[in-house]
Protein backbone atom coordinates (compact mmCIF):
# COMPACT_ATOMS: atom_id res chain seq x y z
CA UNK A 1 0.00 0.00 0.00
CA UNK A 2 2.58 2.56 1.16
CA UNK A 3 6.30 2.05 1.23
CA UNK A 4 9.06 4.55 1.98
CA UNK A 5 12.62 3.66 1.25
CA UNK A 6 15.42 5.86 2.64
CA UNK A 7 13.40 9.02 2.04
CA UNK A 8 15.07 12.37 2.66
CA UNK A 9 13.74 15.86 2.14
CA UNK A 10 15.08 19.39 2.23
CA UNK A 11 13.92 22.68 0.75
CA UNK A 12 16.38 23.75 -1.91
CA UNK A 13 19.87 23.70 -0.40
CA UNK A 14 18.60 24.02 3.17
CA UNK A 15 19.22 21.53 5.91
CA UNK A 16 17.63 18.10 5.89
CA UNK A 17 14.13 18.06 7.30
CA UNK A 18 13.80 14.29 6.87
CA UNK A 19 16.64 11.78 6.72
CA UNK A 20 16.64 8.09 5.84
CA UNK A 21 12.95 7.58 6.59
CA UNK A 22 11.88 4.04 5.75
CA UNK A 23 8.64 2.35 6.71
CA UNK A 24 5.83 0.39 5.24
CA UNK A 25 2.07 0.44 5.78
CA UNK A 26 0.23 -2.73 4.84
CA UNK A 27 -3.25 -2.47 3.36
CA UNK A 28 -5.73 -2.13 6.22
CA UNK A 29 -3.12 -1.01 8.76
CA UNK A 30 -3.69 1.64 11.45
CA UNK A 31 -0.65 3.60 12.61
CA UNK A 32 0.12 6.65 14.66
CA UNK A 33 2.83 9.09 13.74
CA UNK A 34 4.14 11.12 16.64
CA UNK A 35 7.07 13.25 17.64
CA UNK A 36 7.85 16.72 18.97
CA UNK A 37 6.86 19.86 17.10
CA UNK A 38 9.24 20.56 14.26
CA UNK A 39 10.27 16.92 13.96
CA UNK A 40 9.00 16.82 10.37
CA UNK A 41 5.59 15.16 10.80
CA UNK A 42 3.79 17.62 8.55
CA UNK A 43 6.52 17.45 5.92
CA UNK A 44 6.33 13.65 5.94
CA UNK A 45 2.55 13.81 5.49
CA UNK A 46 2.95 16.29 2.65
CA UNK A 47 5.26 13.83 0.94
CA UNK A 48 2.66 11.12 1.43
CA UNK A 49 -0.20 13.08 -0.09
CA UNK A 50 2.02 14.05 -2.99
CA UNK A 51 2.20 17.78 -2.31
CA UNK A 52 5.99 17.44 -2.14
CA UNK A 53 8.46 15.15 -3.84
CA UNK A 54 11.34 13.65 -1.85
CA UNK A 55 14.86 14.97 -2.37
CA UNK A 56 16.16 11.47 -1.80
CA UNK A 57 14.87 7.91 -1.73
CA UNK A 58 11.64 6.42 -3.04
CA UNK A 59 7.98 6.44 -2.10
CA UNK A 60 5.71 3.73 -3.45
CA UNK A 61 1.99 4.35 -3.17
CA UNK A 62 -0.57 1.78 -4.37
CA UNK A 63 2.30 0.00 -6.10
CA UNK A 64 3.48 3.08 -8.04
CA UNK A 65 6.81 4.79 -7.51
CA UNK A 66 5.43 8.31 -7.07
CA UNK A 67 8.88 9.88 -7.06
CA UNK A 68 9.06 9.23 -10.78
CA UNK A 69 5.47 9.69 -11.87
CA UNK A 70 4.70 12.59 -14.21
CA UNK A 71 2.52 15.30 -12.71
CA UNK A 72 -0.46 14.37 -14.87
CA UNK A 73 -0.59 10.90 -13.26
CA UNK A 74 -0.94 12.27 -9.71
CA UNK A 75 -4.66 13.27 -9.60
CA UNK A 76 -5.98 9.66 -9.85
CA UNK A 77 -3.66 8.67 -6.97
CA UNK A 78 -4.65 11.67 -4.86
CA UNK A 79 -8.31 10.69 -5.21
CA UNK A 80 -7.51 7.44 -3.43
CA UNK A 81 -5.99 9.32 -0.48
CA UNK A 82 -8.03 11.31 2.05
CA UNK A 83 -6.24 14.06 3.94
CA UNK A 84 -7.16 15.95 7.09
CA UNK A 85 -5.03 19.06 7.34
CA UNK A 86 -3.97 20.53 10.64
CA UNK A 87 -5.18 23.93 9.43
CA UNK A 88 -8.35 22.38 7.89
CA UNK A 89 -7.98 24.07 4.51
CA UNK A 90 -11.69 24.54 4.03
CA UNK A 91 -12.74 26.89 1.24
CA UNK A 92 -14.42 29.91 2.83
CA UNK A 93 -16.59 30.70 -0.19
CA UNK A 94 -18.22 27.24 -0.20
CA UNK A 95 -20.79 25.99 2.30
CA UNK A 96 -19.90 23.15 4.67
CA UNK A 97 -21.92 20.85 2.41
CA UNK A 98 -20.04 21.95 -0.73
CA UNK A 99 -16.68 21.69 1.06
CA UNK A 100 -17.38 18.13 2.12
CA UNK A 101 -18.70 17.23 -1.35
CA UNK A 102 -15.66 18.72 -3.11
CA UNK A 103 -13.73 15.46 -3.73
CA UNK A 104 -16.85 13.92 -5.32
CA UNK A 105 -17.49 16.99 -7.41
CA UNK A 106 -13.92 16.99 -8.65
CA UNK A 107 -14.44 13.39 -9.79
CA UNK A 108 -17.31 14.64 -11.92
CA UNK A 109 -20.18 13.28 -9.83
CA UNK A 110 -23.56 14.99 -9.99
CA UNK A 111 -24.96 16.58 -6.80
CA UNK A 112 -28.09 14.41 -7.10
CA UNK A 113 -25.96 11.28 -6.71
CA UNK A 114 -23.99 12.38 -3.65
CA UNK A 115 -26.12 14.83 -1.69
CA UNK A 116 -27.64 12.08 0.46
CA UNK A 117 -24.25 10.55 1.32
CA UNK A 118 -22.89 13.98 2.20
CA UNK A 119 -25.85 14.77 4.45
CA UNK A 120 -25.57 11.38 6.17
CA UNK A 121 -21.89 11.97 6.84
CA UNK A 122 -22.52 15.53 8.07
CA UNK A 123 -25.17 14.08 10.38
CA UNK A 124 -22.68 11.53 11.63
CA UNK A 125 -20.06 14.15 12.51
CA UNK A 126 -22.76 16.36 14.06
CA UNK A 127 -22.76 19.09 11.41
CA UNK A 128 -26.15 18.54 9.81
CA UNK A 129 -27.43 21.86 11.13
CA UNK A 130 -24.40 23.64 9.72
CA UNK A 131 -24.60 22.07 6.26
CA UNK A 132 -25.32 25.39 4.62
CA UNK A 133 -23.21 27.55 6.89
CA UNK A 134 -19.90 28.83 5.61
CA UNK A 135 -16.57 28.00 7.29
CA UNK A 136 -15.91 31.51 8.69
CA UNK A 137 -18.89 31.10 11.05
CA UNK A 138 -17.95 27.57 12.19
CA UNK A 139 -16.11 26.97 15.47
CA UNK A 140 -12.68 25.32 15.43
CA UNK A 141 -14.17 21.96 16.33
CA UNK A 142 -16.81 22.25 13.62
CA UNK A 143 -14.19 23.11 11.02
CA UNK A 144 -12.17 20.11 12.14
CA UNK A 145 -15.14 17.80 11.68
CA UNK A 146 -15.93 19.30 8.28
CA UNK A 147 -12.32 18.73 7.24
CA UNK A 148 -12.52 15.12 8.40
CA UNK A 149 -15.82 14.62 6.58
CA UNK A 150 -14.23 15.96 3.37
CA UNK A 151 -11.29 13.59 3.78
CA UNK A 152 -13.45 10.50 4.12
CA UNK A 153 -16.43 11.27 1.86
CA UNK A 154 -14.88 9.56 -1.18
CA UNK A 155 -14.06 6.42 0.85
CA UNK A 156 -10.31 6.72 0.39
CA UNK A 157 -8.02 3.69 0.52
CA UNK A 158 -5.50 5.64 2.57
CA UNK A 159 -6.40 8.27 5.16
CA UNK A 160 -3.75 10.70 6.37
CA UNK A 161 -4.60 13.03 9.25
CA UNK A 162 -2.51 15.78 10.79
CA UNK A 163 -3.57 16.42 14.41
CA UNK A 164 -7.21 15.56 13.65
CA UNK A 165 -8.28 15.91 17.29
CA UNK A 166 -6.30 19.04 18.06
CA UNK A 167 -9.30 21.36 18.23
CA UNK A 168 -12.02 19.23 19.74
CA UNK A 169 -13.09 18.31 23.25
CA UNK A 170 -12.21 14.83 24.59
CA UNK A 171 -15.71 13.46 23.97
CA UNK A 172 -15.68 14.45 20.31
CA UNK A 173 -12.04 13.35 20.00
CA UNK A 174 -13.12 9.86 21.11
CA UNK A 175 -15.93 9.89 18.56
CA UNK A 176 -13.60 10.93 15.78
CA UNK A 177 -11.08 8.23 16.72
CA UNK A 178 -13.92 5.74 16.59
CA UNK A 179 -14.80 7.05 13.13
CA UNK A 180 -11.23 6.47 11.99
CA UNK A 181 -11.23 3.01 13.57
CA UNK A 182 -14.52 2.23 11.84
CA UNK A 183 -13.16 3.35 8.47
CA UNK A 184 -10.09 1.23 9.15
CA UNK A 185 -12.27 -1.77 9.92
CA UNK A 186 -13.97 -1.24 6.53
CA UNK A 187 -10.61 -1.45 4.80
CA UNK A 188 -9.12 2.06 4.84
CA UNK A 189 -5.46 2.27 5.80
CA UNK A 190 -5.05 5.03 8.39
CA UNK A 191 -2.03 7.08 9.44
CA UNK A 192 -2.71 9.61 12.21
CA UNK A 193 -0.12 12.22 13.12
CA UNK A 194 -0.73 13.42 16.68
CA UNK A 195 0.78 14.74 19.87
CA UNK A 196 -2.08 13.35 21.88
CA UNK A 197 -0.76 10.38 23.85
CA UNK A 198 -4.30 9.72 25.06
CA UNK A 199 -5.28 8.52 21.61
CA UNK A 200 -2.76 5.69 21.72
CA UNK A 201 -4.76 4.10 24.55
CA UNK A 202 -7.98 4.14 22.57
CA UNK A 203 -6.67 2.28 19.57
CA UNK A 204 -4.00 -0.35 19.83
CA UNK A 205 -1.78 0.49 16.93
CA UNK A 206 1.90 0.80 16.09
CA UNK A 207 3.42 4.23 16.79
CA UNK A 208 6.00 5.71 14.45
CA UNK A 209 8.14 8.21 16.31
CA UNK A 210 9.77 10.98 14.35
CA UNK A 211 12.58 12.95 15.94
CA UNK A 212 15.01 15.33 14.25
CA UNK A 213 13.96 14.08 10.85
CA UNK A 214 14.55 10.41 11.56
CA UNK A 215 12.05 7.70 12.28
CA UNK A 216 11.89 4.93 14.81
CA UNK A 217 9.12 2.54 15.56
CA UNK A 218 7.90 2.28 19.17
Amino acid at each position, binding site marked *: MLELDDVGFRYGRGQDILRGVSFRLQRGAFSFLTGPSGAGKTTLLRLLFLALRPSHGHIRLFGEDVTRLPRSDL*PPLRRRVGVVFQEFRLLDHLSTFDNVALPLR*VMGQDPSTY*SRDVMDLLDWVGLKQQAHAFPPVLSGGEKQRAAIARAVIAKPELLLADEPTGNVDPVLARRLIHLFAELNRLGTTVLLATHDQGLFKQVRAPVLHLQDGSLRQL
Partner: protein
Amino acid sequence: MTTSSRKPGQIIPKEAASLRTLTATMAVMCYLACLAIGALILINQAVDNWSRGLSGEVTVQVREIEARDIDVDVAAVLALLGETAGVTSAEDLGREAAEKLLEPWLGTEGLDALPVPRILRVTVKADHPPDYAVLAQKLAAVSPGASLDTHRRWEDQLTRMAGTLSLVSALILVLISASAVAMVIFATRAVLDANQKTVDVLHLVGAEDGYIARAINRRFLSTGLWAGGLGVLLALGTFLLLGYAGLPQADGLAAASRSLFYLPGDTWWITPLALLAVPVVATLLALVTSRITLLRMLRTLP
Protein backbone atom coordinates in the same frame (compact mmCIF):
# COMPACT_ATOMS: atom_id res chain seq x y z
CA MET B 1 -34.80 21.91 3.26
CA THR B 2 -33.56 19.42 0.71
CA THR B 3 -29.93 19.55 -0.21
CA SER B 4 -30.33 18.26 -3.74
CA SER B 5 -32.48 21.25 -4.66
CA ARG B 6 -29.55 23.57 -3.98
CA LYS B 7 -27.19 24.51 -6.74
CA PRO B 8 -23.62 23.79 -5.68
CA GLY B 9 -21.55 26.92 -5.01
CA GLN B 10 -19.11 28.21 -7.61
CA ILE B 11 -15.74 26.56 -7.06
CA ILE B 12 -13.96 29.80 -7.92
CA PRO B 13 -15.59 32.74 -6.10
CA LYS B 14 -17.38 35.23 -8.27
CA GLU B 15 -15.90 38.50 -7.12
CA ALA B 16 -12.55 39.14 -8.68
CA ALA B 17 -11.39 42.73 -8.96
CA SER B 18 -8.91 41.91 -11.70
CA LEU B 19 -11.73 40.58 -13.88
CA ARG B 20 -13.72 43.78 -13.49
CA THR B 21 -10.70 45.78 -14.61
CA LEU B 22 -10.22 43.38 -17.50
CA THR B 23 -13.87 43.78 -18.55
CA ALA B 24 -13.51 47.56 -18.60
CA THR B 25 -10.26 47.61 -20.59
CA MET B 26 -11.46 44.89 -22.96
CA ALA B 27 -14.62 46.95 -23.59
CA VAL B 28 -12.44 49.89 -24.65
CA MET B 29 -10.44 47.56 -26.93
CA CYS B 30 -13.66 46.23 -28.47
CA TYR B 31 -14.86 49.80 -29.02
CA LEU B 32 -11.63 50.70 -30.84
CA ALA B 33 -11.88 47.48 -32.85
CA CYS B 34 -15.41 48.45 -33.93
CA LEU B 35 -14.17 51.87 -35.07
CA ALA B 36 -11.35 50.26 -37.05
CA ILE B 37 -13.82 47.82 -38.61
CA GLY B 38 -16.14 50.73 -39.50
CA ALA B 39 -13.24 52.50 -41.19
CA LEU B 40 -12.31 49.32 -43.08
CA ILE B 41 -15.87 48.91 -44.39
CA LEU B 42 -16.14 52.59 -45.38
CA ILE B 43 -12.85 52.55 -47.28
CA ASN B 44 -13.78 49.48 -49.27
CA GLN B 45 -17.25 50.88 -49.89
CA ALA B 46 -15.85 54.17 -51.15
CA VAL B 47 -13.41 52.44 -53.49
CA ASP B 48 -16.28 50.36 -54.87
CA ASN B 49 -18.37 53.47 -55.49
CA TRP B 50 -15.56 55.42 -57.13
CA SER B 51 -14.40 52.67 -59.40
CA ARG B 52 -17.98 51.77 -60.37
CA GLY B 53 -18.55 55.42 -61.34
CA LEU B 54 -15.26 55.63 -63.18
CA SER B 55 -15.40 52.34 -64.98
CA GLY B 56 -18.86 53.19 -66.35
CA GLU B 57 -17.34 56.07 -68.29
CA VAL B 58 -14.36 56.73 -70.56
CA THR B 59 -13.28 59.87 -72.41
CA VAL B 60 -12.17 60.28 -76.01
CA GLN B 61 -10.16 63.37 -76.82
CA VAL B 62 -9.94 64.62 -80.41
CA ARG B 63 -7.14 67.08 -81.08
CA GLU B 64 -7.16 69.53 -83.92
CA ILE B 65 -4.60 68.57 -86.56
CA GLU B 66 -3.47 70.81 -89.35
CA ALA B 67 -5.16 70.30 -92.70
CA ARG B 68 -7.97 68.32 -91.13
CA ASP B 69 -11.45 69.42 -90.24
CA ILE B 70 -11.98 68.67 -86.56
CA ASP B 71 -15.77 68.51 -86.95
CA VAL B 72 -15.40 65.75 -89.58
CA ASP B 73 -13.03 63.88 -87.28
CA VAL B 74 -15.44 64.19 -84.35
CA ALA B 75 -18.33 62.95 -86.48
CA ALA B 76 -16.27 59.98 -87.68
CA VAL B 77 -15.24 59.11 -84.11
CA LEU B 78 -18.85 59.35 -82.94
CA ALA B 79 -19.93 57.05 -85.77
CA LEU B 80 -17.23 54.52 -84.85
CA LEU B 81 -18.23 54.63 -81.15
CA GLY B 82 -21.88 54.11 -82.11
CA GLU B 83 -20.96 50.85 -83.84
CA THR B 84 -18.68 49.58 -81.06
CA ALA B 85 -20.06 46.75 -78.87
CA GLY B 86 -20.08 47.67 -75.15
CA VAL B 87 -20.63 51.38 -75.72
CA THR B 88 -24.03 52.58 -74.57
CA SER B 89 -23.72 56.23 -75.61
CA ALA B 90 -21.22 58.77 -76.91
CA GLU B 91 -21.65 62.52 -76.62
CA ASP B 92 -19.61 65.44 -77.86
CA LEU B 93 -19.35 67.94 -74.99
CA GLY B 94 -18.74 70.69 -77.55
CA ARG B 95 -16.12 73.42 -77.82
CA GLU B 96 -17.58 75.50 -74.97
CA ALA B 97 -17.32 72.68 -72.50
CA ALA B 98 -13.70 72.10 -73.50
CA GLU B 99 -12.95 75.80 -73.14
CA LYS B 100 -14.57 75.81 -69.71
CA LEU B 101 -12.27 73.01 -68.63
CA LEU B 102 -9.24 75.04 -69.76
CA GLU B 103 -10.45 78.31 -68.26
CA PRO B 104 -8.91 77.90 -64.79
CA TRP B 105 -5.48 77.58 -66.38
CA LEU B 106 -5.64 79.78 -69.43
CA GLY B 107 -8.36 82.33 -68.64
CA THR B 108 -10.98 83.42 -71.17
CA GLU B 109 -8.89 85.68 -73.36
CA GLY B 110 -7.52 84.35 -76.62
CA LEU B 111 -8.85 80.85 -76.35
CA ASP B 112 -10.54 81.26 -79.75
CA ALA B 113 -7.19 81.35 -81.45
CA LEU B 114 -5.96 78.20 -79.73
CA PRO B 115 -6.51 74.69 -81.05
CA VAL B 116 -8.75 73.39 -78.27
CA PRO B 117 -9.24 69.63 -78.23
CA ARG B 118 -12.78 68.23 -78.13
CA ILE B 119 -13.94 65.96 -75.36
CA LEU B 120 -16.34 63.07 -76.03
CA ARG B 121 -17.99 61.49 -73.01
CA VAL B 122 -18.53 57.80 -73.65
CA THR B 123 -20.62 55.64 -71.32
CA VAL B 124 -19.89 51.94 -71.44
CA LYS B 125 -21.48 48.80 -70.04
CA ALA B 126 -19.66 48.32 -66.72
CA ASP B 127 -20.04 44.53 -66.86
CA HIS B 128 -19.21 44.18 -70.61
CA PRO B 129 -16.91 47.07 -71.49
CA PRO B 130 -15.45 47.31 -75.01
CA ASP B 131 -11.97 45.99 -75.75
CA TYR B 132 -10.06 49.22 -75.13
CA ALA B 133 -6.88 48.17 -76.97
CA VAL B 134 -8.82 47.43 -80.18
CA LEU B 135 -10.91 50.59 -79.76
CA ALA B 136 -7.77 52.75 -79.39
CA GLN B 137 -6.33 51.31 -82.64
CA LYS B 138 -9.59 51.87 -84.52
CA LEU B 139 -9.82 55.45 -83.20
CA ALA B 140 -6.29 56.23 -84.39
CA ALA B 141 -7.20 54.84 -87.83
CA VAL B 142 -10.33 57.03 -88.08
CA SER B 143 -8.66 60.17 -86.75
CA PRO B 144 -4.96 60.60 -86.02
CA GLY B 145 -5.80 63.22 -83.38
CA ALA B 146 -8.11 60.95 -81.34
CA SER B 147 -6.97 59.37 -78.07
CA LEU B 148 -8.71 57.23 -75.46
CA ASP B 149 -8.57 57.89 -71.69
CA THR B 150 -9.98 55.03 -69.62
CA HIS B 151 -9.20 56.64 -66.20
CA ARG B 152 -7.23 53.48 -65.43
CA ARG B 153 -4.43 55.57 -63.91
CA TRP B 154 -6.82 57.23 -61.43
CA GLU B 155 -8.46 53.98 -60.58
CA ASP B 156 -5.11 52.32 -59.94
CA GLN B 157 -4.03 55.15 -57.63
CA LEU B 158 -7.29 55.10 -55.74
CA THR B 159 -7.11 51.35 -55.30
CA ARG B 160 -3.53 51.59 -54.09
CA MET B 161 -4.38 54.28 -51.56
CA ALA B 162 -7.43 52.38 -50.33
CA GLY B 163 -5.32 49.23 -50.09
CA THR B 164 -2.85 51.06 -47.84
CA LEU B 165 -5.65 52.43 -45.65
CA SER B 166 -7.23 48.97 -45.39
CA LEU B 167 -3.88 47.53 -44.39
CA VAL B 168 -3.48 50.20 -41.69
CA SER B 169 -6.96 49.42 -40.32
CA ALA B 170 -6.20 45.69 -40.35
CA LEU B 171 -2.90 46.35 -38.57
CA ILE B 172 -4.73 48.37 -35.92
CA LEU B 173 -7.09 45.42 -35.43
CA VAL B 174 -4.12 43.08 -35.02
CA LEU B 175 -2.49 45.43 -32.47
CA ILE B 176 -5.75 45.72 -30.54
CA SER B 177 -6.07 41.92 -30.43
CA ALA B 178 -2.46 41.55 -29.30
CA SER B 179 -2.94 44.01 -26.42
CA ALA B 180 -6.16 42.25 -25.48
CA VAL B 181 -4.27 38.94 -25.34
CA ALA B 182 -1.63 40.51 -23.09
CA MET B 183 -4.30 41.92 -20.78
CA VAL B 184 -6.06 38.56 -20.55
CA ILE B 185 -2.76 36.90 -19.62
CA PHE B 186 -2.17 39.43 -16.83
CA ALA B 187 -5.72 39.07 -15.54
CA THR B 188 -5.48 35.26 -15.62
CA ARG B 189 -2.33 35.37 -13.51
CA ALA B 190 -3.99 37.74 -11.07
CA VAL B 191 -7.07 35.50 -10.75
CA LEU B 192 -4.90 32.44 -10.22
CA ASP B 193 -2.85 34.25 -7.56
CA ALA B 194 -6.00 35.45 -5.80
CA ASN B 195 -7.33 31.86 -5.73
CA GLN B 196 -4.08 30.13 -4.81
CA LYS B 197 -5.56 28.50 -1.69
CA THR B 198 -8.55 27.16 -3.60
CA VAL B 199 -6.33 25.82 -6.37
CA ASP B 200 -4.10 24.07 -3.80
CA VAL B 201 -7.07 22.39 -2.15
CA LEU B 202 -8.52 21.36 -5.52
CA HIS B 203 -5.22 19.75 -6.47
CA LEU B 204 -5.04 17.91 -3.16
CA VAL B 205 -8.52 16.46 -3.48
CA GLY B 206 -7.50 15.08 -6.87
CA ALA B 207 -8.65 17.72 -9.36
CA GLU B 208 -6.94 17.61 -12.72
CA ASP B 209 -5.47 20.78 -14.21
CA GLY B 210 -8.16 20.77 -16.90
CA TYR B 211 -10.90 20.78 -14.25
CA ILE B 212 -9.37 23.74 -12.39
CA ALA B 213 -8.74 25.58 -15.66
CA ARG B 214 -12.39 25.09 -16.67
CA ALA B 215 -13.65 26.40 -13.32
CA ILE B 216 -11.56 29.58 -13.64
CA ASN B 217 -12.12 29.85 -17.39
CA ARG B 218 -15.86 30.15 -16.88
CA ARG B 219 -15.24 33.58 -15.33
CA PHE B 220 -13.71 34.78 -18.59
CA LEU B 221 -16.78 33.85 -20.63
CA SER B 222 -18.88 36.60 -19.07
CA THR B 223 -15.91 38.99 -19.22
CA GLY B 224 -15.58 38.52 -22.99
CA LEU B 225 -19.31 38.80 -23.64
CA TRP B 226 -19.74 41.90 -21.48
CA ALA B 227 -16.68 43.64 -22.89
CA GLY B 228 -17.66 42.83 -26.48
CA GLY B 229 -21.28 43.88 -25.97
CA LEU B 230 -20.31 47.16 -24.30
CA GLY B 231 -17.74 47.92 -27.02
CA VAL B 232 -20.29 47.35 -29.80
CA LEU B 233 -22.94 49.46 -28.05
CA LEU B 234 -20.47 52.31 -27.57
CA ALA B 235 -19.40 52.10 -31.22
CA LEU B 236 -23.02 52.04 -32.44
CA GLY B 237 -23.68 55.08 -30.26
CA THR B 238 -20.65 56.82 -31.77
CA PHE B 239 -21.69 56.07 -35.37
CA LEU B 240 -25.26 57.23 -34.68
CA LEU B 241 -24.04 60.38 -32.94
CA LEU B 242 -21.65 61.20 -35.77
CA GLY B 243 -24.26 60.36 -38.39
CA TYR B 244 -27.30 62.13 -36.98
CA ALA B 245 -26.35 64.61 -34.26
CA GLY B 246 -24.94 66.74 -37.05
CA LEU B 247 -21.53 68.20 -36.30
CA PRO B 248 -21.31 70.96 -38.91
CA GLN B 249 -17.51 70.63 -39.08
CA ALA B 250 -17.79 66.96 -39.95
CA ASP B 251 -20.17 66.69 -42.88
CA GLY B 252 -18.15 64.00 -44.63
CA LEU B 253 -17.79 62.01 -41.42
CA ALA B 254 -21.55 62.23 -40.81
CA ALA B 255 -22.36 60.96 -44.29
CA ALA B 256 -19.78 58.21 -43.94
CA SER B 257 -21.16 57.11 -40.54
CA ARG B 258 -24.70 57.07 -41.92
CA SER B 259 -23.66 55.11 -44.97
CA LEU B 260 -22.36 52.34 -42.65
CA PHE B 261 -26.01 51.52 -41.91
CA TYR B 262 -27.16 51.82 -45.53
CA LEU B 263 -24.72 49.70 -47.49
CA PRO B 264 -26.03 49.13 -51.00
CA GLY B 265 -28.27 46.20 -51.89
CA ASP B 266 -26.80 42.80 -51.24
CA THR B 267 -24.04 44.08 -48.92
CA TRP B 268 -26.31 45.44 -46.14
CA TRP B 269 -25.31 42.55 -43.84
CA ILE B 270 -21.60 43.45 -43.71
CA THR B 271 -21.84 46.09 -40.93
CA PRO B 272 -24.10 44.09 -38.55
CA LEU B 273 -22.08 40.93 -39.11
CA ALA B 274 -18.74 42.69 -38.55
CA LEU B 275 -19.99 44.37 -35.37
CA LEU B 276 -21.50 41.11 -34.12
CA ALA B 277 -18.17 39.39 -34.70
CA VAL B 278 -16.47 41.69 -32.16
CA PRO B 279 -18.03 40.20 -28.97
CA VAL B 280 -17.68 36.70 -30.41
CA VAL B 281 -14.00 37.16 -31.20
CA ALA B 282 -13.39 38.96 -27.87
CA THR B 283 -14.99 36.09 -25.95
CA LEU B 284 -13.11 33.40 -27.84
CA LEU B 285 -9.88 35.32 -27.42
CA ALA B 286 -10.45 35.69 -23.66
CA LEU B 287 -11.38 32.02 -23.25
CA VAL B 288 -8.58 30.53 -25.32
CA THR B 289 -5.87 32.85 -23.97
CA SER B 290 -6.85 32.36 -20.34
CA ARG B 291 -7.12 28.58 -20.78
CA ILE B 292 -3.66 28.30 -22.32
CA THR B 293 -2.21 30.60 -19.62
CA LEU B 294 -3.92 28.61 -16.86
CA LEU B 295 -2.73 25.24 -18.11
CA ARG B 296 0.82 26.54 -18.47
CA MET B 297 0.80 28.05 -14.96
CA LEU B 298 -0.88 25.06 -13.30
CA ARG B 299 1.78 22.80 -14.79
CA THR B 300 4.42 24.62 -12.70
CA LEU B 301 2.61 23.87 -9.40
CA PRO B 302 3.42 20.74 -7.35
